Each structure stands twice: as structure tokens, then as C-alpha cells.
């Protein structure tokens, strides 16, 4: 009954359901219900087309209610075997995702979204490796392998050029594997040459090696792709201590800080609303370029009452602002006037297709992060916009696609500030200017709904807060089914990926990162190997 065909094991038959609610499948008595994990793929053989779906729920059924009240003598293996599948049976709930009809045209077009359901009693089977491959593609110059589906060996691949066309998000509780997956994606983008990356690396995790939770050192991007990655830092000492020689030391001139930047820091600097408004007054009074420097130099003791009166700023607001901005003077990378134009430097690298990791060194507090990320991104975005407009549709002159990676994204994209920050703008206007975001966050509910709904592809690790789950799944079809799947993910290395770059949602065990073998797969060769290769080449020459 349960013949193992190369197409995958038969599981049961369709007995009911709907397109919106999903399909109910009665399991054959020989199908062990305990193997039907939520998140696994099944294929339904309809009369004209084949449907792909994902198990979203498993229920137990009985033909007769009396059976559940006076259960048969199941201690007898014979009776237990007879009753299984006849009197009692298992039902899996399958959310339909894609169809593939049999004609030649649709084979060329690939899987299509579902618009109908399979007929009653259509045969349901496990998705085979070949089925999965047909849906998620094979690893090639566009597709990057990110992980394997649950209990399978097939590779799930992301279409990287499609991926970078929209802003994307990676969400999950702390310690679930967000950073590892981000590294993977960055490698994918480097490998497939789909976009240049600018990574605001708050905790110095991406550029150089870091220790994983298992106390193992894992290599950073710079170590894997030395010629394609540049590490910029705000804190030279920290980089040196970690054995990294940074490509460039970034300085930010206080003449580059605009009142809008301070507005974004309102929460982290603990400023009141009148204090923030006072910033605009000071900026007008002292001049856009010099206001911060002059303000910080204002003598505490001096009588500034006249000035405050003139600008109609209340003294308490002034005190509040002063306390807040004093924090900025502790940031050593902040100088009155930067010697070099950091933005220009970053752009030079990005133009050459070199990815830039900006490390924050010891300045891993939010003040520095939000300030620097916002200032740099705003400038870079402006440049991109100018160039895109200058290109006027000439594809060759268009700037190389840029992906900006930010952590703690809710600080930039929360409903209160997302309207003002450059990040909110990028997320909303999407790819018009070839700049997109990769946002990483553990509290997606803190991000503005409008921004969330614009994210193309979302990677969700385990989340257990109801609000976070809702916000990640907002606007996704089959939300209730995905919700069950999302809440049942394992605590580590399992992620639900869905959205633009994938034909249908998938739960993956993420690809390994950190072993020597995994580095080799990414195209990394260690010193010994390179030496051997060089020797062989030399031999070949003579």
C-alpha cells in the first residue's frame, strides 16, 4: 500500500478543505502520524496539475465518537493495528502554496501560485528531493544555497539578484542564529556579485573572526574574501587588539551632524521634545556647520540667559539638551572637522564592488550606532539618488546595487521616527535608487507596520512574543498556518523564510557556517592550499 516510489512515499488522500483554509488530508493507516512534522512539504497529485503544500497542522480523528469514550483493547497489538487507520485516523492540514500543471508551457514558466484546489481523494505524497529542487532551484550563478528543508537533504536556494531588489528582514530572538544567517546572506551577495554591501556592524561580528556560542572561532567576511571586503572602523584600538588591520579609520565631523540626527537620538539621549525643537533654533543661530561645536563650547557658567531669551528656548530644555549632547562629546571619533570625507571613501569602495563592514569597536552603544548609521546612510543615499537620476534610465551608468545592513532596526524604523529617518525612506521607496536595506532585529513589533509590509523577503527565527509573530507575518497569505509553523521552530538554526526571493515559504535548517569544510564551499582556500596551488602553477609555467 505504501510503496516507496522515487516520487516520495504515499501519505493519504484529500478529504476536504478550501483554498483559503487549506486542505485536509486523511492519512493512510500505514502512515505513521508521528512522522508528520509541521513545516514539511507534501505534493498532491491533482487530475491536471500537481500542487505543492506545507503541513501546517496535524489532528487525530475517529469515525465513531463512541470509540473515544470506550476505547478498544489496544494493548492487543492485533486490535491496535486494525483500529489504526480505520476507526481512528490521522488528518494533516496542508496549506497549498504552488501548482505545476503538466503542459509544456507551465514547465517552462515554473511553479505558479495556487488558484484552485485538488479534487476529492487526490493522492497525497511526500515531496521528493526532485520536487523541492524544482521549486527552489539549484545552486547556480543566481541561486545561493541557504539551508535544507526539515528532514531532507535537498538544498533550498535563494534567488540573490531578486533578493537584493527589495529591502529584507531577519528576525528572531537573541541567540537563534540571526548573525550567522546574515553572514551567510552577505557571503551569498559577495559570491553572486549581486550587490555591494555596507554593513553597520555594531558588535564587530561580520568583518573579522568572532567566538561563537560554542567557544569556537568563526571567520569573518574579511578573512574569507580578503579582496572583496574592506573593514572600516570607528575605533582603531579595538581593531588592533583583535588582530585586525582596518582598511580605513572613519571620523565624523561634528559639522556633519544635522538637527534631524539629534531628533533620531531623542530616545537614546533622553531628550524632551522642546529640547529637540531647541536644536533647530541653535542650528539656525550658530549656523548649520558649526552649531554643535559652538553649543558644546558654550560656557556652563556664563550667562546665556539673553541667548535663550532671544531664541525663546526654555532654560530647562537647554539643560536637558546640554546633558544629552554631552554624551556625544565622549565619542572620540567625533571631531570638529573630519580630515577626509568618509562617505566619499565608502562610496569609492562600493563602486569597485568591494563590500564595506563598518565596525563600531568599543562604541557599541545605541547613540553612536544610530548617529553614525544615519549620517553616513543619508549621504550615501543622496549620492546614489544623484547618480541614478543622472543615469536617466541608462542601465550601464546606473549605480551598482547597494544593500545596507543595520542591526537593532527598530531604533531606526519605529513608528515614531521611521517617517524622518533615511532608513524609513529607503525601506518605503524600495529599489528606485538601487539602495535596499537588510534589517536585523529581535523585536519586529517595534518596527513601523508600513515598513514591515514593504520588506520583500523575511527570515524568521523562533519568536515567542505574539506581537512579534503577528508583525512578521503581517500581510502574508496563509498567515494562520505560518503562525503555527513559526511558533514551533527549534530554538537554533531553524528559520522560516518567505517572501519575494522564494516561490513559497520554507522552513530550513540553515546552512553550516564555521567549519573548515563550510569555508571551502564558500570558495575560501587556506594558506597551505594556496601555497600548493601556487607551486603547481609555477611548475606549469616552466
Amino acid at each position, binding site marked *: 500500500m505504501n510503496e516507496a516510489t522515487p516520487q516520495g512515499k504515499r501519505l493519504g488522500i484529500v478529504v476536504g478543505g478550501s483554498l483559503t483554509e487549506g486542505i485536509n488530508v486523511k492519512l493512510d493507516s500505514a502512515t505513521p502520524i508521528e512522522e508528520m512534522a509541521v513545516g514539511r512539504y507534501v505534493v498532491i497529485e491533482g487530475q491536471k496539475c500537481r500542487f505543492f503544500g506545507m503541513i501546517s497542522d496535524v489532528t487525530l480523528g475517529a469515525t465513531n465518537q463512541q470509540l473515544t469514550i470506550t476505547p478498544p483493547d489496544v494493548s492487543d497489538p*492485533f486490535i491496535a493495528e*486494525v483500529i489504526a487507520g480505520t476507526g481512528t485516523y490521522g488528518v494533516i492540514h496542508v496549506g497549498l502554496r504552488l501548482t505545476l500543471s503538466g503542459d509544456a508551457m507551465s514547465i517552462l514558466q515554473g511553479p505558479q501560485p495556487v488558484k484552485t484546489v485538488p479534487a476529492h481523494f487526490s493522492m497525497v505524497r511526500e515531496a521528493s528531493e526532485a520536487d523541492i529542487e524544482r521549486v527552489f532551484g539549484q545552486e547556480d550563478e543566481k541561486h545561493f544555497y541557504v539551508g535544507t528543508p526539515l528532514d531532507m537533504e535537498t538544498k533550498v536556494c535563494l534567488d540573490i539578484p531578486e533578493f537584493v531588489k527589495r529591502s529584507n528582514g531577519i528576525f528572531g530572538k537573541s541567540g537563534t542564529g540571526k548573525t550567522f544567517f546574515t553572514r551567510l546572506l552577505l557571503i551569498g551577495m559577495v559570491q553572486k556579485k549581486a550587490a555591494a554591501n555596507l554593513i553597520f556592524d555594531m558588535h564587530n561580528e561580520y568583518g573579522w573572526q568572532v567566538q561563537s556560542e560554542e567557544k569556537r572561532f568563526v571567520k569573518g567576511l574579511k578573512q574569507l574574501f580578503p579582496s572583496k571586503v574592506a573593514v572600516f572602523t570607528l575605533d582603531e584600538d579595538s581593531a588592533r587588539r583583535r588582530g585586525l588591520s582596518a582598511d580605513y579609520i572613519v571620523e565624523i565631523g561634528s559639522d556633519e551632524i544635522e538637527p534631524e540626527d539629534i531628533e533620531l537620538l531623542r530616545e537614546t539621549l533622553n531628550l524632551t521634545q522642546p529640547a529637540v525643537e531647541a536644536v533647530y533654533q541653535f542650528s539656525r543661530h550658530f549656523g548649520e556647520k558649526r552649531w554643535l561645536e559652538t553649543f558644546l563650547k558654550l560656557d556652563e557658567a556664563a550667562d546665556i540667559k539673553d541667548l535663550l531669551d532671544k531664541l525663546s528656548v526654555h532654560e530647562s530644555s537647554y539643560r536637558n539638551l546640554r546633558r544629552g549632547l554631552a554624551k556625544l562629546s565622549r565619542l572620540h571619533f567625533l571631531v570638529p572637522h573630519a580630515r577626509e570625507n568618509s562617505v566619499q571613501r565608502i562610496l569609492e569602495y562600493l563602486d569597485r564592488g568591494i563590500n564595506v563592514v563598518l565596525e563600531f569597536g568599543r562604541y557599541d552603544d545605541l547613540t553612536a550606532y544610530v548617529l553614525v548609521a544615519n549620517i553616513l546612510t543619508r549621504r550615501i543615499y543622496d549620492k546614489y539618488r544623484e547618480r541614478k537620476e543622472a543615469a536617466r534610465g541608462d542601465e550601464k551608468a546606473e549605480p551598482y546595487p547597494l544593500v545596507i545592513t543595520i542591526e537593532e532596526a527598530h531604533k531606526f524604523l519605529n513608528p515614531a521616527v521611521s517617517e524622518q529617518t533615511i532608513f524609513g525612506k529607503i525601506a518605503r521607496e524600495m529599489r528606485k535608487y538601487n539602495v535596499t536595506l537588510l534589517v536585523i532585529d529581535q523585536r519586529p513589533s517595534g518596527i513601523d507596520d508600513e515598513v514591515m509590509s514593504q520588506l520583500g523577503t523575511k527570515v524568521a527565527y523562533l519568536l515567542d512574543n505574539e506581537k512579534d509573530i503577528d508583525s512578521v507575518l503581517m500581510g502574508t497569505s496563509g498567515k494562520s498556518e505560518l503562525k503555527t509553523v513559526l511558533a514551533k521552530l527549534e530554538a537554533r538554526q531553524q528559520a522560516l523564510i518567505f517572501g519575494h526571493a522564494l516561490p513559497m515559504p520554507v522552513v530550513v535548517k540553515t546552512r553550516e557556517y564555521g567549519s573548515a569544510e563550510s569555508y571551502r564551499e564558500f570558495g575560501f582556500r587556506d594558506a597551505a592550499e594556496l601555497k600548493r596551488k601556487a607551486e603547481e602553477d609555477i611548475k606549469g609555467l616552466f
Partner: protein
Amino acid sequence: MSEKIGEVIEASTGQFVAECYELHSPPPLGSLVKTSDSDVEIYGVVCNAATESVDPGRRPIARGKEEATEEGIYRQHPQLSKLLRTTFDILVIGHAQGDELYHYLPPHPSRVHSFVYLCETDEVRRFTQSLDFLPILLGTKAVAVDEIASACLRQASCAHDDKRTFLVKAGKEVAVLLSGDLNRLNAILRRIRA
């Protein structure tokens, strides 16, 4: 060739009665027997057997008061084996025409005086490959229908190499047919458990 065990003495489409050639030797309850109506072979399950007086008006009387053994009675009264007879009832569950087996009632009943044969192991196995006859068996109005059905399945299982697999398959079929009547289902399952 199957063993000839009796002769049809009363026939209808769904059921027939046969008389044994040997007194007190009816086929076991639930065993598969066959008879024929010209080119149609009719299969049935033994659902009852009885030994009684040939003349319904004359009931047998007890004769063994002076005898030491039961055989002694028949030795002393040789006429008894002529005055008594053993009959058995057969529930028709299918038929065969040529090489084809059909698990439903034949177009005509068998003729009276047709010979009745006990089916051999191979034939039982061939006939019970399909369990489509179970609805007839379970739906009959006979007194101890569940006993007959269990006996039939037990008997048939002996003809199969893998007794347990056959019984599980049959049990599942019964479970589907009797899904509305758990008491009967439980009774049958307990009687056929392997």
C-alpha cells in the same frame, strides 16, 4: 479434485441446505464450500449444521441406558444411521464463471441434488484474495452472524502464508463496515485476533 461431502437438498439464491453423506460429519463452521449450477460454480460459507431424524414426525429416543459406550448404541441399532441424517446450511457469498471469480450472488440458485464439495486450500486462498464478500456475510440475518464471520475469517487465514497480515487486512475491512457498531466490531476482532 475437491472432496465431495454432500448434496443440495434445498436451494434458494442466497442460501442452500445440503445433506452430508456421512452422519455427524458436516464441514466445520465457516468453511468454504462450493456447488455448481451447470457452468456456474457457487461458493458459500457453512453457517449452520444439524443432525435430526429423517422423518420429522419421529423424534429420536434415548437408547444408551444399558450400553457402556456411545458407539455401542449404533452397533446395537444399525438402523439408526439410516433414520438420522446430518444437514448443513450454506450462505452463498460468490460464484465463478470460467476463470473469473465474482464476490456477489450468482444469477441462479444451485439445483437440488447438486454435489457439494469442500474447497481445498488453494481455492480458499484464491477466493479470499478479495474480501468483497464480507458485506454479505456481515449483513445476513443468521442467528450468530458474528460467530460465522469470525469462523470464516479464521478458517480462511489458515490458507494464507501470512496469517496475520490476512487477518489485519480483514479486520480493517470489518472495522470499516462496522464503524457504526463498535460492540459487534470488538466481538469479531476478539474472535479473530492472531
